[in-house]
Protein backbone atom coordinates (compact mmCIF):
# COMPACT_ATOMS: atom_id res chain seq x y z
CA UNK A 1 0.00 0.00 0.00
CA UNK A 2 1.36 3.39 -0.96
CA UNK A 3 1.64 6.00 1.79
CA UNK A 4 2.49 9.67 1.40
CA UNK A 5 5.08 9.54 4.19
CA UNK A 6 8.61 10.09 2.96
CA UNK A 7 11.03 7.35 3.86
CA UNK A 8 14.81 7.22 3.58
CA UNK A 9 15.30 5.28 0.35
CA UNK A 10 17.83 2.44 0.19
CA UNK A 11 19.60 3.99 -2.79
CA UNK A 12 20.32 7.09 -0.73
CA UNK A 13 22.25 5.03 1.84
CA UNK A 14 24.43 3.72 -0.97
CA UNK A 15 24.88 7.25 -2.38
CA UNK A 16 26.11 8.41 1.04
CA UNK A 17 28.36 5.35 1.30
CA UNK A 18 29.79 6.24 -2.12
CA UNK A 19 30.46 9.82 -0.97
CA UNK A 20 32.22 8.37 2.09
CA UNK A 21 34.52 6.10 0.03
CA UNK A 22 35.20 8.59 -2.77
CA UNK A 23 35.76 11.36 -0.22
CA UNK A 24 38.35 9.14 1.48
CA UNK A 25 39.84 8.44 -1.96
CA UNK A 26 40.13 12.21 -2.55
CA UNK A 27 41.86 12.58 0.80
CA UNK A 28 44.36 9.76 0.17
CA UNK A 29 44.97 11.04 -3.38
CA UNK A 30 45.79 14.42 -1.91
CA UNK A 31 48.43 12.81 0.32
CA UNK A 32 49.84 10.52 -2.39
CA UNK A 33 49.99 13.13 -5.14
CA UNK A 34 52.46 15.16 -3.10
CA UNK A 35 55.12 12.62 -4.13
CA UNK A 36 53.69 10.74 -7.13
CA UNK A 37 52.75 11.99 -10.61
CA UNK A 38 49.14 11.74 -11.83
CA UNK A 39 50.08 8.83 -14.13
CA UNK A 40 51.78 6.97 -11.29
CA UNK A 41 48.73 7.56 -9.08
CA UNK A 42 46.45 6.26 -11.84
CA UNK A 43 48.49 3.05 -12.06
CA UNK A 44 48.36 2.61 -8.27
CA UNK A 45 44.59 3.28 -8.23
CA UNK A 46 44.07 0.57 -10.85
CA UNK A 47 46.20 -1.94 -8.95
CA UNK A 48 44.45 -1.00 -5.72
CA UNK A 49 41.04 -1.74 -7.29
CA UNK A 50 42.01 -5.33 -8.04
CA UNK A 51 41.46 -6.66 -4.47
CA UNK A 52 37.95 -5.15 -4.49
CA UNK A 53 37.19 -6.88 -7.80
CA UNK A 54 38.55 -10.18 -6.44
CA UNK A 55 36.51 -9.71 -3.25
CA UNK A 56 33.35 -9.20 -5.33
CA UNK A 57 34.13 -12.32 -7.35
CA UNK A 58 34.51 -14.35 -4.15
CA UNK A 59 31.26 -12.93 -2.74
CA UNK A 60 29.53 -13.95 -5.96
CA UNK A 61 31.16 -17.40 -5.77
CA UNK A 62 32.66 -16.75 -9.21
CA UNK A 63 29.16 -16.49 -10.74
CA UNK A 64 29.85 -13.32 -12.69
CA UNK A 65 26.98 -11.75 -14.68
CA UNK A 66 27.92 -12.00 -18.35
CA UNK A 67 25.06 -10.16 -20.03
CA UNK A 68 26.72 -8.83 -23.18
CA UNK A 69 25.35 -5.29 -22.84
CA UNK A 70 26.24 -5.13 -19.16
CA UNK A 71 29.80 -6.30 -19.84
CA UNK A 72 30.27 -3.72 -22.61
CA UNK A 73 28.86 -0.86 -20.51
CA UNK A 74 30.96 -1.95 -17.52
CA UNK A 75 34.22 -2.03 -19.48
CA UNK A 76 33.29 1.25 -21.18
CA UNK A 77 32.84 2.79 -17.70
CA UNK A 78 36.41 1.88 -16.79
CA UNK A 79 37.90 2.97 -20.12
CA UNK A 80 35.90 6.22 -20.24
CA UNK A 81 36.87 7.15 -16.68
CA UNK A 82 40.54 6.35 -17.31
CA UNK A 83 40.74 8.17 -20.66
CA UNK A 84 38.79 11.12 -19.26
CA UNK A 85 41.32 11.35 -16.45
CA UNK A 86 44.16 11.40 -18.98
CA UNK A 87 42.38 14.23 -20.82
CA UNK A 88 42.10 16.06 -17.52
CA UNK A 89 45.84 15.68 -16.88
CA UNK A 90 46.63 16.82 -20.44
CA UNK A 91 44.53 19.95 -19.87
CA UNK A 92 46.45 20.57 -16.63
CA UNK A 93 49.70 20.66 -18.62
CA UNK A 94 48.32 23.58 -20.68
CA UNK A 95 46.34 25.49 -18.07
CA UNK A 96 46.14 26.16 -14.31
CA UNK A 97 44.37 23.67 -12.07
CA UNK A 98 42.15 26.49 -10.75
CA UNK A 99 40.60 26.81 -14.19
CA UNK A 100 40.68 23.22 -15.50
CA UNK A 101 39.17 21.47 -12.45
CA UNK A 102 36.05 23.66 -12.11
CA UNK A 103 35.37 23.31 -15.85
CA UNK A 104 35.75 19.51 -15.90
CA UNK A 105 33.73 19.34 -12.64
CA UNK A 106 30.68 20.21 -14.72
CA UNK A 107 30.54 16.69 -16.21
CA UNK A 108 27.34 15.76 -14.27
CA UNK A 109 25.48 18.24 -16.50
CA UNK A 110 26.17 15.99 -19.47
CA UNK A 111 25.03 12.91 -17.53
CA UNK A 112 21.79 14.66 -16.58
CA UNK A 113 21.19 15.69 -20.20
CA UNK A 114 21.97 12.17 -21.48
CA UNK A 115 19.74 10.61 -18.79
CA UNK A 116 16.94 12.96 -19.91
CA UNK A 117 17.37 12.08 -23.59
CA UNK A 118 18.32 8.38 -23.46
CA UNK A 119 16.73 7.12 -20.23
CA UNK A 120 13.79 9.57 -20.24
CA UNK A 121 14.50 10.47 -16.62
CA UNK A 122 12.69 13.51 -15.28
CA UNK A 123 13.68 15.55 -12.21
CA UNK A 124 11.14 17.36 -10.07
CA UNK A 125 11.56 21.10 -9.40
CA UNK A 126 13.23 20.55 -6.03
CA UNK A 127 15.76 18.16 -7.59
CA UNK A 128 16.50 20.61 -10.44
CA UNK A 129 17.21 23.28 -7.82
CA UNK A 130 19.36 20.78 -5.92
CA UNK A 131 21.30 19.89 -9.06
CA UNK A 132 22.09 23.57 -9.70
CA UNK A 133 23.26 24.04 -6.10
CA UNK A 134 25.31 20.84 -6.32
CA UNK A 135 26.97 22.00 -9.55
CA UNK A 136 27.78 25.37 -8.00
CA UNK A 137 29.37 23.61 -5.02
CA UNK A 138 31.35 21.23 -7.27
CA UNK A 139 32.79 24.24 -9.11
CA UNK A 140 33.62 25.97 -5.79
CA UNK A 141 35.29 22.84 -4.37
CA UNK A 142 37.40 22.61 -7.51
CA UNK A 143 38.80 26.14 -7.27
Amino acid at each position, binding site marked *: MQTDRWHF*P*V*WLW*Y*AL*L*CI*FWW*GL*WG*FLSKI*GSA*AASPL*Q*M*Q*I*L*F*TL*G*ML*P*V*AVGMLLR*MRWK*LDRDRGGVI*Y*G*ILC*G*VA*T*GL*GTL*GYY*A*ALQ*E*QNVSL*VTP*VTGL*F*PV*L*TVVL*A*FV*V*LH*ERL*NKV*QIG*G*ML*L*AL*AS*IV*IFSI
Partner: protein
Amino acid sequence: MHWMAYAGFAIVLWGLNGLFMKLGTNRVSAQSMVIWVTAGFVVLLPFLWSGTTLAGLSASVIFVGLIAGTVNGLGNWAVFACLEKGAKASVAIPLTALYPLWTIVLATAFLKERPTSLQWIGIALAVAGGAMLSYEPAAAVASPEEQPHCVQ
Protein backbone atom coordinates in the same frame (compact mmCIF):
# COMPACT_ATOMS: atom_id res chain seq x y z
CA MET B 1 46.01 21.45 -28.65
CA HIS B 2 44.00 23.99 -26.63
CA TRP B 3 43.39 23.03 -22.98
CA MET B 4 39.62 23.38 -23.47
CA ALA B 5 39.75 20.56 -26.02
CA TYR B 6 41.32 18.24 -23.44
CA ALA B 7 38.90 19.45 -20.74
CA GLY B 8 35.99 18.91 -23.14
CA PHE B 9 37.28 15.40 -23.84
CA ALA B 10 37.26 14.69 -20.08
CA ILE B 11 33.77 16.15 -19.63
CA VAL B 12 32.34 14.08 -22.49
CA LEU B 13 33.90 10.83 -21.25
CA TRP B 14 33.04 11.36 -17.57
CA GLY B 15 29.54 12.52 -18.51
CA LEU B 16 29.06 9.46 -20.73
CA ASN B 17 30.39 7.32 -17.89
CA GLY B 18 27.39 8.32 -15.74
CA LEU B 19 25.07 7.03 -18.47
CA PHE B 20 27.08 3.82 -18.95
CA MET B 21 26.86 3.20 -15.18
CA LYS B 22 23.07 3.26 -15.24
CA LEU B 23 22.80 1.24 -18.46
CA GLY B 24 25.24 -1.31 -17.05
CA THR B 25 23.48 -1.71 -13.69
CA ASN B 26 20.19 -2.18 -15.56
CA ARG B 27 21.73 -5.34 -17.02
CA VAL B 28 24.17 -6.81 -14.49
CA SER B 29 24.55 -6.68 -10.69
CA ALA B 30 26.50 -3.94 -8.92
CA GLN B 31 29.13 -6.50 -7.91
CA SER B 32 29.59 -7.64 -11.50
CA MET B 33 29.84 -4.02 -12.63
CA VAL B 34 32.77 -3.49 -10.24
CA ILE B 35 34.59 -6.37 -11.90
CA TRP B 36 33.90 -5.23 -15.47
CA VAL B 37 34.81 -1.62 -14.67
CA THR B 38 38.07 -2.78 -13.11
CA ALA B 39 38.71 -4.73 -16.33
CA GLY B 40 38.19 -1.45 -18.21
CA PHE B 41 40.82 0.22 -16.03
CA VAL B 42 43.23 -2.69 -16.48
CA VAL B 43 42.90 -2.34 -20.27
CA LEU B 44 44.52 1.09 -19.94
CA LEU B 45 47.37 -0.11 -17.72
CA PRO B 46 49.90 -0.89 -20.51
CA PHE B 47 49.27 2.56 -21.99
CA LEU B 48 49.83 4.20 -18.59
CA TRP B 49 52.93 2.11 -17.92
CA SER B 50 54.44 3.16 -21.26
CA GLY B 51 54.44 6.75 -19.96
CA THR B 52 55.91 6.23 -16.50
CA THR B 53 57.18 3.73 -13.93
CA LEU B 54 56.75 3.37 -10.20
CA ALA B 55 60.51 3.46 -9.69
CA GLY B 56 61.60 6.04 -7.18
CA LEU B 57 58.35 6.06 -5.22
CA SER B 58 58.66 5.31 -1.52
CA ALA B 59 56.85 2.31 -0.04
CA SER B 60 54.56 4.59 1.94
CA VAL B 61 53.46 6.52 -1.19
CA ILE B 62 52.83 3.25 -3.04
CA PHE B 63 50.81 1.99 -0.06
CA VAL B 64 48.71 5.17 0.06
CA GLY B 65 48.11 4.99 -3.71
CA LEU B 66 47.02 1.34 -3.52
CA ILE B 67 44.68 1.98 -0.58
CA ALA B 68 43.28 4.97 -2.48
CA GLY B 69 42.53 2.61 -5.38
CA THR B 70 40.85 0.16 -3.03
CA VAL B 71 38.55 2.76 -1.48
CA ASN B 72 37.85 4.09 -4.98
CA GLY B 73 36.76 0.58 -5.96
CA LEU B 74 34.48 0.40 -2.90
CA GLY B 75 33.02 3.77 -3.93
CA ASN B 76 32.38 2.37 -7.40
CA TRP B 77 30.52 -0.56 -5.86
CA ALA B 78 28.42 1.82 -3.73
CA VAL B 79 27.42 4.00 -6.68
CA PHE B 80 26.49 0.91 -8.73
CA ALA B 81 24.44 -0.42 -5.80
CA CYS B 82 22.79 2.99 -5.54
CA LEU B 83 21.80 2.86 -9.22
CA GLU B 84 20.80 -0.80 -8.93
CA LYS B 85 18.43 0.07 -6.06
CA GLY B 86 16.53 2.46 -8.30
CA ALA B 87 18.32 5.81 -8.14
CA LYS B 88 18.07 7.89 -11.28
CA ALA B 89 21.42 8.55 -13.00
CA SER B 90 20.45 12.23 -13.13
CA VAL B 91 20.20 12.24 -9.30
CA ALA B 92 22.91 9.76 -8.28
CA ILE B 93 25.72 11.20 -10.43
CA PRO B 94 25.44 14.86 -9.32
CA LEU B 95 24.82 13.70 -5.73
CA THR B 96 27.87 11.43 -5.50
CA ALA B 97 29.96 14.10 -7.25
CA LEU B 98 29.66 16.00 -3.95
CA TYR B 99 32.28 13.69 -2.40
CA PRO B 100 34.85 16.56 -2.10
CA LEU B 101 32.68 17.74 0.80
CA TRP B 102 33.88 14.71 2.80
CA THR B 103 37.46 15.16 1.51
CA ILE B 104 37.44 18.70 2.93
CA VAL B 105 36.15 17.42 6.28
CA LEU B 106 38.96 14.82 6.41
CA ALA B 107 41.61 17.33 5.33
CA THR B 108 40.38 19.71 8.03
CA ALA B 109 40.48 16.99 10.69
CA PHE B 110 43.75 15.25 9.81
CA LEU B 111 45.84 17.68 7.73
CA LYS B 112 44.88 20.71 9.83
CA GLU B 113 43.75 22.50 6.68
CA ARG B 114 41.18 25.23 7.21
CA PRO B 115 38.37 25.69 4.66
CA THR B 116 38.42 29.09 2.95
CA SER B 117 35.35 31.34 3.03
CA LEU B 118 34.56 30.23 -0.51
CA GLN B 119 34.79 26.57 0.51
CA TRP B 120 32.38 27.20 3.40
CA ILE B 121 29.92 28.54 0.82
CA GLY B 122 30.56 25.41 -1.26
CA ILE B 123 29.92 23.21 1.78
CA ALA B 124 26.60 24.97 2.48
CA LEU B 125 25.56 24.68 -1.17
CA ALA B 126 26.58 21.00 -1.27
CA VAL B 127 24.55 20.13 1.84
CA ALA B 128 21.50 22.01 0.58
CA GLY B 129 21.90 20.69 -2.97
CA GLY B 130 22.40 17.12 -1.78
CA ALA B 131 19.29 17.25 0.38
CA MET B 132 17.23 18.71 -2.46
CA LEU B 133 18.55 16.19 -5.00
CA SER B 134 17.56 13.38 -2.65
CA TYR B 135 14.00 14.61 -2.38
CA GLU B 136 11.39 12.53 -4.11
CA PRO B 137 7.75 12.62 -3.04
CA ALA B 138 6.66 9.19 -1.76
CA ALA B 139 4.27 8.71 -4.66
CA ALA B 140 7.13 9.23 -7.14
CA VAL B 141 9.38 6.61 -5.55
CA ALA B 142 9.17 3.29 -7.29
CA SER B 143 10.80 0.15 -5.94
CA PRO B 144 13.51 -1.41 -8.14
CA GLU B 145 11.17 -4.30 -8.85
CA GLU B 146 8.62 -1.90 -10.33
CA GLN B 147 11.14 -0.39 -12.69
CA PRO B 148 11.93 -1.81 -16.11
CA HIS B 149 15.01 -4.01 -15.93
CA CYS B 150 16.34 -2.78 -19.24
CA VAL B 151 16.14 0.79 -20.39
CA GLN B 152 16.66 1.91 -23.97
